[in-house]
Structure formats: C-alpha cells, structure tokens
C-alpha cells in the first residue's frame, strides 16, 4: 500500500467509500448523507410554512400536513442534526486526541450504514403509501390507530438508524477512554472531545429506552399486542415515558457537541485559552447527568400529579445553572482576547444570545403551572426551535465552516459565508421570534390551517418570509461549497492561523494514518503550547515505526442491507393479502446473518505501513 495520492475513476471512488473504515472518510459520508437529509427536512419545513403563510390555505391537505410535520421533526433530529454532528465528531475527535483511528473502525462503518439505510427506509415511506403522521413523538394513543404503514416505517426506520447511533456512541467512548496519545490526560482533552465523550455516554444510556419503546410499538401494531392500548389493559402513558426518557437526553445529545464546537471556535478566534476549562468540563458532565432526571417536563399536562410535576420542574430549572456557567465562560473567553470575526466566529458570537433566549423560554416552560398555559401552543414551537436552530444548527454551520479545511483541504469563501450567516440569522429570528407571540395569542401547534381575523395572519406571513431567508442562506452555502470544490485551492496544516489543538498540527486533509508518530501532549491546547515555544510541529512521543492499519470491508453494507430488506418484509407482513413477505424477511435475515458469519470466521488482520514508506527526506537526514 503506497501513501501517495493517485487519481481515481468514479467507480473506484464509490467502491472506496462503500468499503472504507477510515474515520475521515466515514465522516464525509455522514456529512453528505446528513446534508441531504437536512435539505429534505428543510424542504418539508418550507412546505409547512407555505401552507401556514395565509389563513384558510389549501396548499396541502390536513393529512399531508400531518405527514409533513412528522417527517420534518423526525428527519431533522435523527437524520440531519445527529448524523452531521456524528460526522464532525468522526472527522475531528480522533485527531484531537492524537489517535490514528477510532477504536473499532469496522463498527464505525457499520454504524454509518445502519443510520443511512434507516434514514432511506423512513423516507421511502413517502412513495409507499404515505409517511408517518403521528408527530415525531409518535404518541401511542395516536400512532397505534394510524392507518396505512406510515408509523411502521417510523418504527423500523428509527430502530435501524438507532442501532447505528448506539454503535457510534460506544465506539467513541472506547476510543476516548483508550486511545489518547501520550500526555493527553482527561483534563487536557479539547472541549469538543469532552462533549463527544459525554454525548457518547448519553447515547449509550438514552437509546435503549427508545429501542424498548419502539419494540413495544412494533408488537402493538404488527402482532396485536396491547402494551399501549388502555381498553385492553395497557397504558398509553408508558410510551410517553419511554419516549421522553430517551427524548430529553436526545436534545442534549444534539446541543452538547454544538457547545463543544463553539468552545473551540471561541478560544481559537479570541486567541485565548478557553476561560474556566475545568468548570466547562464539570458543567458538561453535570448537564449530562441532569438530562436524565427531567424528562417528565414534557408531560406536565398528562396529569402526573403536583408532586411529580414539582420535582421535575425543579430538576429542570437546575439545568440552567451549568448552562449559565457555560454562557459566562464563553463571554469571558472573548473578554480581553484579540477577537477575529471570521465566519465561524460570527456564528459563535450570535449563538450566545440566540441560545440564551431559547434557554429563558425553557425556564418559563419548566414552571409547571405556567406550562399549562403554554402547552401545545406555538410558544413551545418557538422555544425548541430557538434552542435547536439557535444552538444546534448554528453550531453545525459554524463547525462545517471551521473544520471544512481540515476535512476537505480547501477553504470555504468567507464573503459568501457571511451572506449565508446574515441571511440565516435574520431569517431564523424573523421566523421564530414572532411564534412566541403567536403562541401567547392562542395559536395551537400542529394545526394545518387557521381562520382569518384572529390576529394571527400578519405574524404567520412574517414567519414564512423568515423561513425563505433561511432557505436562501442555505442555498448560498451550497453554491459556496460547489465553488470551493471546483476551485480546489489546497491549504496547509493550520489555515485559520490560530489552531490550538492537535488536529491543526497535521496536513489538511490528514494522511490516512493521521499521525506518522503519535504526538506528545504537554498540556491543554497542545499545539498552541508548541507554537508559543517557537516550534513548528509537535514533539513525537514514539520513534518512527510500522503502523498497523485495518483493511476496508464491504461487509457493513451487506449486514445493513439485509436488515433493510427484512424490514420491508416485516412491514407488509401484517397485511393478509401479501404472502411474499415471509420469504422477503427470510432472505433479508439470511443476508445479514450470512455477512456476520463471514465476518466472524474470516480472519482479517489488517496491514502494516512500513517504516521505510513513512520516512521522508527529513527523517533520513536525522538518521544519517
């Protein structure tokens, strides 16, 4: 295996990406497919806003509207935000801790393909008799009575992509615990690595409840079980609990990586170390813990009783404390720094007030008695879009811009980036700020239209115009990406000039083995320390030697494809007139278990890059 780059045909590149186990290439796969799903979810959002732009609109029917809002929520959370963040984690985290890859490269690939096929399956529902229509929360009392196969697509699609996320989470945990470079103690890990670590732990603990909930739902819908059917002795509230035991940590799974990205960006472009690093770590871990003790605040109006409501209300408000610590630390990081307003920094600076506004409405909603007023109104819609768009999506856009050179080796255009930023930011506030008031004026969420003359007409139009701004911003980002890729101007190791962490010490994009010699981390912001001592590169922690690398494999795709096929069989099996479903299930499972068997019995020891191939002129000079 030689280390020099060579031109490949399209087919060879495709095969390379289908079989890759390299964390950097899997990151690109996550980013591309997450980006596609982000555009799908965005289109659905545009359709929703067009329908609601004017009163009594008939752009789409009530049924299609329900499918739109369900798929918008599900797509954006599970198929866009989370995969894009997992992509950035994959691209950056191993570099930040000085590792040559994640701990289980094969599983990394398997996790990606699970997510991908789950997402494709979910979206195929549009063409196969209707998408799920019970909301992204899919409350059981609604979803077990939903006609058609929409909810079955939801259950099976999320089950498969949920396995993928769980695999990714476990993989990152093992990587961070075991594969840190010499000198990289826990308290020297960059903030983004810390958030990846906490998020992976949240994934580990939060996804099993979702798996259980989805399995019970599957039994209810396909085999006539009655877990959630109150008339038959079940309890529909159990689904709500299981969903939110998963669902609340899920929103922290989304926001914590964004916090990590912003922490890196704010430190880099303020040219200062992150203010209060250890309190940031503490706050991140605390948010992770508290995230599991607050889920019932999504269920205040269910009737859990005043004691339960009070406990969960207080626990929820407690989360404001660690979050407040973070907000102040970010502000103090900028304080007195020599701040440079690049595009990522613009996102980071605007994130602080935008997210804080979402946090404040969060505290309002956490007050259980007041929640009875806000419940099921546009106030809630405004709140969670402020935290998710104002926090996660700004974080994703910032992270993509910031790490673009490290992932692809080119710089996105700053001017176009600023257009995207301003259009998106203005559009975002225009869309969602007014929705707080729409909620307070009594507009319920999840309605497909409304009558004129209730004082909602102008505000809804304003909201829709804001959504158009965001869409234009995203289109400019796409144009920017295309222009940058076509121009293909290569950049060096540290294109932003102020990189602090290990990933900026190696070429962009990094060679497939990442580090020729593992670097020695001598403190927090390891690369910055070397720079301040006038050095150009990291001190190696090991002599130059052979590097053991894993082989690529097509088996992950085969395993997942089998599940994908079997799911279609399972989906239609409940229809009496479809006898072909049994063989489809069997064929699918045979593909899956056959691939797993091949993986188990065929030894794959990987390969070595030899020391002689790694040596360049400089190394030889040192030796002579």
């Amino acid at each position, binding site marked *: 295996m030689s280390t020099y780059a060579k031109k490949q045909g399209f087919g060879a590149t495709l095969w390379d990406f289908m079989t890759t186990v390299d964390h950097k290439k899997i990151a690109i796969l996550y980013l591309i497919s997450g980006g596609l799903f982000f555009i799908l979810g965005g289109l659905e959002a545009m359709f929703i806003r067009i329908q609601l732009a004017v009163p009594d609109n008939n752009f789409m029917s009530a049924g299609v509207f329900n499918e739109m809002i369900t798929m918008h929520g599900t797509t954006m959370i599970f198929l866009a935000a989370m995969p894009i963040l997992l992509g950035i984690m994959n691209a950056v985290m191993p570099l930040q801790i000085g590792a040559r890859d994640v701990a289980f490269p094969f599983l990394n690939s398997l996790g990606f393909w699970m997510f991908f096929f789950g997402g494709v399956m979910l979206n195929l529902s549009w063409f196969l008799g209707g998408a799920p229509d019970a909301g992204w929360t899919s409350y059981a009392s609604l979803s077990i009575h939903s006609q058609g196969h929409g909810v079955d697509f939801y259950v099976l699609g999320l089950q498969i992509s949920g396995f993928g996320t769980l695999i990714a989470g476990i993989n990152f945990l093992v990587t961070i615990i075991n594969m840190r470079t010499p000198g990289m103690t826990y308290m020297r890990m960059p903030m983004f690595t810390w958030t990846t670590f906490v998020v992976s732990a949240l994934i580990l603990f939060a996804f099993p409840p979702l798996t259980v909930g989805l399995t019970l739902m599957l039994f209810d819908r396909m085999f006539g079980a009655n877990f959630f059917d109150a008339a038959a002795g079940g309890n529909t*509230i*159990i689904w709500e609990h299981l969903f939110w*035991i998963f669902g609340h940590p899920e929103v922290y799974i989304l926001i914590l990586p964004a916090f990590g990205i912003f922490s890196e960006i704010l430190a880099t472009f303020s040219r200062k170390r992150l203010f209060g690093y250890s309190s940031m770590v503490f706050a991140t871990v605390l948010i992770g813990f508290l995230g599991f003790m607050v889920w019932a605040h999504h269920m205040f109006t269910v009737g859990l009783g005043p004691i339960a409501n009070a406990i969960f209300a207080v626990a929820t408000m407690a989360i404001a404390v660690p979050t407040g610590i973070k907000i102040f630390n970010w502000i103090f990081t900028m304080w007195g720094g020599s701040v440079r307003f690049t595009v990522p920094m613009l996102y980071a600076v605007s994130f602080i007030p935008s997210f804080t506004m979402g946090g404040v409405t969060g505290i309002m909603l956490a007050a259980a008695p007041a929640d009875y007023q806000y419940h099921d109104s546009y106030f809630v819609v405004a709140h969670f879009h402020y935290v998710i768009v104002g926090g996660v999506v700004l974080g994703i856009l910032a992270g993509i811009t910031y790490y673009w050179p490290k992932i692809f080796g080119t710089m996105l255009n700053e001017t176009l980036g600023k257009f995207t930023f301003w259009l998106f930011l203005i559009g975002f506030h225009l869309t969602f700020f007014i929705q707080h008031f729409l909620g307070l004026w009594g507009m319920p969420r999840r309605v497909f239209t409304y009558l004129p003359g209730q004082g909602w007409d102008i505000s809804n139009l304003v909201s829709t115009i804001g959504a158009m701004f965001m869409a234009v911003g995203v289109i400019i980002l796409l144009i920017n990406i295309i222009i940058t890729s076509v121009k293909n101007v290569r950049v060096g190791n540290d294109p932003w000039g102020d990189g602090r962490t290990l990933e900026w010490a190696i070429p962009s994009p990094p060679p497939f083995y990442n580090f020729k010699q593992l670097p020695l981390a001598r403190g927090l912001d390891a690369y910055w320390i070397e720079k301040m001592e006038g050095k150009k590169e990291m001190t190696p922690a090991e002599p130059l030697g052979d590097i053991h690398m894993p082989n690529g494999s097509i088996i992950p795709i085969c395993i997942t494809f089998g599940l994908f096929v079997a799911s279609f069989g399972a989906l239609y099996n409940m229809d009496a007139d479809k006898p072909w479903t049994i063989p489809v299930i069997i064929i699918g499972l045979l593909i899956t278990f056959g691939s797993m068997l091949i993986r188990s019995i065929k030894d794959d020891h990987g390969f070595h890059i030899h020391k002689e191939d790694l040596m360049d002129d400089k190394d030889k000079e040192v030796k002579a």
Partner: protein
Amino acid sequence: MTNQQSNSANPNLNLEYRRKQNAEEMKHQVITFTMMIFFTLIAFAMVAMESISRWFIIPVILLLAAIQVIFQLYYFMHMKHKGHETIALFIYSGLTVGLITVLVFLTIVWL
C-alpha cells in the same frame, strides 16, 4: 498492584510481595464466598419458615442479593483494584439512570 502486568522478564521480581498479595486476595475471596453461601442459606431459610411476614422477607432478600452483587463485582471481578474508576463511573451512572426510571414507573405510572 496485583492487577498490573509486570514489565520485567524476571519471574522472581517482587516474588515475596506478590505472594503476600495473592494470599491476601485469596483470603478475601474465601471470606466473601463463604458469606455469599451463608446469605443464600438465610434467604432459603426465611422462605422455608412460614411464620415470617412476606413484607419482611422480600426486602431482606433483595438487600442480600444487592450485597452479593457488590461482593461479586468488587472481590471476584477486581473492581476494588486501581484502574477501574471509569468502569465504576459508568456502572453507577447506568444504575442511577435505570433506577430512577424504575422508581418513576413504580410511583407515578403503575401505582
């Protein structure tokens, strides 16, 4: 130190010390093993004696079971040794999350 591999090729390095450690370890394991058997006997005996209230027996058996799990983890699976902090953190976090869920289901969902 007993859980750490020696880097030395010399099998006699720290032999005395390691022997003493192993003897100590063995003693702990025998003691905990005896106690676990004893706890099991208590559990069976309590159930066999019909005079004791079931509201006493069930919590006591659960308590004994919990102690046995702790013995198992700490003395037989070496969690008391150094280098198991991360594992302990994750076990206890998982337990916390799981038990809160069970507690909530017991208090506000099923009862």
